[in-house]
């Protein structure tokens, strides 16, 4: 192994460098000027996005602890773009936090630590590496969920996050120890499980339950709504797209590379959980009053749709999952971006506060409408294409009952997404949210998200690129 091999870890190394640079910048700023770290972090993040596209070679490091190939780099790129959008949206919130003015850089450092974990998690080639990076993704986020020191809700969200993530990783580890007992190795390559014996299927069930906590698949979704509601909006949006996205990607990698031979076992598990997740997520979303809770349950339902792509275990399905997660990042972050802008300006977060939003803030409500249409899957926007490919993947696997339930759920979801749209455009309000002038970064973030929502569906090159690259795993 030569020094140049280290450049296989380009994205992780660049992120670590960024974290160090931000630490130095943090030291050199006075207490009054801490907010100057916001543009520094945002602009320094752009090279990291570019680096991800430079070198897409295949290789492994440290005795197969770290694996990289074009698919994994693509997954990392998708999630890095998501984090960039989150960074653009938080600037306003960070500046207006009176109590936390001197802790702004903590936010960036913790998110970047978590992102380093996300990148390593995708590239893990050994369960030791897998576990270490899994914890690196979730512990900083628990600290961030409790970021708003003087808010009871925020501490509550932090507690629920850290306890459920510790509990879930405990369950996951128990599953891993059973898998280790069955195979005698922790290396992905050597582990590939061929037979369904009792101890390994037990191990798989525990392992799957642990990951299901992270994706918030029913019946492991109970923490989601509380954490999403209590945590600051920026953290919620990170949780709902990046944490969920990486868990989905890792589930796809593990299911195909490790458990590919025992597809009969996990197909049933995913079949049942997909139905439960879609249905329960949708039914609970209908009766939510708080917009963050509403988006939490909608994201649970979206996780159910994502499972449709995994159930067949085909390359086509994996591509559909990648493509859907990219679109989901754009649409969910657009929705959370609007929620964040409105909460900063007026501290309102109930759905009825959105009544008459179109009168005062027409552009914000247009972005929100596009985002919700995309989440619901209405044709002109990208969400439709994402859902279409997921459904096609389920149809390809021949699961027509599952497909029927998914379509019914898509119709139910249309109802509650349109409730918010109706509130914004039709309902009248005596005290609507006043006109909001958002700052440069927030505006840029919303514009990028909107562009993503509209463009991703129409440029077939993006889908083709993913399809060509998803043969790696």
């Amino acid at each position, binding site marked *: 192994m030569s020094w140049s091999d280290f450049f296989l870890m380009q994205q992780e190394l660049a992120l670590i460098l960024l974290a160090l640079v931000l630490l130095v910048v943090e030291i050199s700023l006075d207490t009054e000027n801490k907010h100057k770290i916001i543009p520094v972090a945002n602009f320094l993040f752009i090279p990291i996005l570019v680096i991800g596209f430079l070198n897409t070679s295949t290789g492994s490091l440290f005795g197969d602890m770290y694996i990289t190939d074009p698919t994994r780099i693509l997954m990392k790129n998708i999630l890095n773009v998501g984090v960039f959008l989150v960074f653009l949206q938080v600037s306003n919130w960070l500046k207006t936090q009176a109590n936390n003015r001197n802790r702004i850089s903590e936010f960036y450092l913790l998110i970047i630590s978590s992102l380093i974990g996300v990148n390593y998690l995708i590239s893990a080639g050994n369960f030791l590496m897998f576990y270490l990076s899994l914890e690196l993704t979730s512990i900083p986020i628990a600290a961030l969920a409790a970021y708003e020191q003087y808010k009871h809700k925020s501490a*509550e969200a932090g507690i629920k996050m850290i306890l459920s993530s510790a509990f879930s990783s405990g369950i996951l580890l128990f599953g891993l120890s059973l898998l280790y007992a069955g195979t005698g190795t922790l290396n992905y390559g050597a582990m590939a499980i061929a037979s369904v014996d009792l101890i390994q299927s037990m191990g798989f069930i525990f392992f799957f339950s642990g990951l299901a906590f992270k994706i918030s698949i029913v019946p492991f979704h109970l923490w989601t709504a509380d954490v999403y509601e209590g945590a600051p909006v920026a953290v919620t949006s990170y949780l709902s797209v990046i944490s969920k996205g990486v868990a989905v990607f890792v589930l796809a990698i593990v299911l195909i590379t490790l458990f590919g031979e025992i597809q009969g076992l996990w197909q049933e598990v995913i079949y049942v959980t997909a139905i439960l997740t879609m249905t329960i997520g949708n039914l609970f979303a209908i009766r939510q009053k708080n917009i963050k809770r509403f988006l939490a349950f909608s994201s649970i339902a979206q996780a159910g749709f994502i499972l449709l792509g995994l159930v067949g275990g085909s390359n086509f399905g994996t591509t559909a999952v990648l493509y859907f997660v990219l679109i989901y990042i754009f649409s969910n972050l657009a929705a959370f971006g609007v929620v964040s802008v409105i909460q900063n300006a007026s501290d309102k977060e109930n759905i009825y506060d959105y009544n008459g939003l179109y009168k005062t803030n027409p552009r914000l409500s247009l972005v929100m409408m596009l985002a919700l249409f995309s989440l619901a899957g209405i044709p002109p926007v990208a969400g439709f294409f994402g859902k279409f490919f997921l459904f096609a993947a389920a149809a390809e696997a021949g699961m027509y009952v599952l497909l029927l339930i998914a379509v019914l759920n898509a119709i139910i979801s249309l109802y509650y997404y349109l409730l918010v749209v109706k509130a914004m455009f039709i309902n009248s309000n005596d005290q609507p949210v006043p006109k909001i002038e958002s700052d440069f970064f927030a505006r840029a973030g919303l514009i990028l998200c909107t562009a993503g929502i509209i463009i991703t569906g129409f440029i077939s090159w993006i889908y083709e690129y993913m399809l060509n690259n998803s043969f790696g795993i």
Partner: protein
Amino acid sequence: MIKGIPFEHIMIFSTLLFFIGVYGFLTRKNLITILISIELILNAVNINFVAVNVYLYPEALEGHFFALFIIAIAAAEAAVAIAIFINLYRNIRSINIEKVNEMKN
């Protein structure tokens, strides 16, 4: 190899410990005891890893290493968790999980 103790006994012990931890996590009211239950779960996993390594696959030390890493990470996790508990205690003067229910209503 530990003399005189069959492998099955260790596995039964660790499985019992695991489910005691799960039970404690789900029923306990005090946040600190919930954290202790999580430690029980992780220790059950550690015993599993080490026992499997010693009895079944003694040629490599993967299980031992994994147990070491789990101990280290559990400490980090407990540190963050306790920091958040202290923050909550400052806000509501209690570490009872039933008081942590502002969003349930």
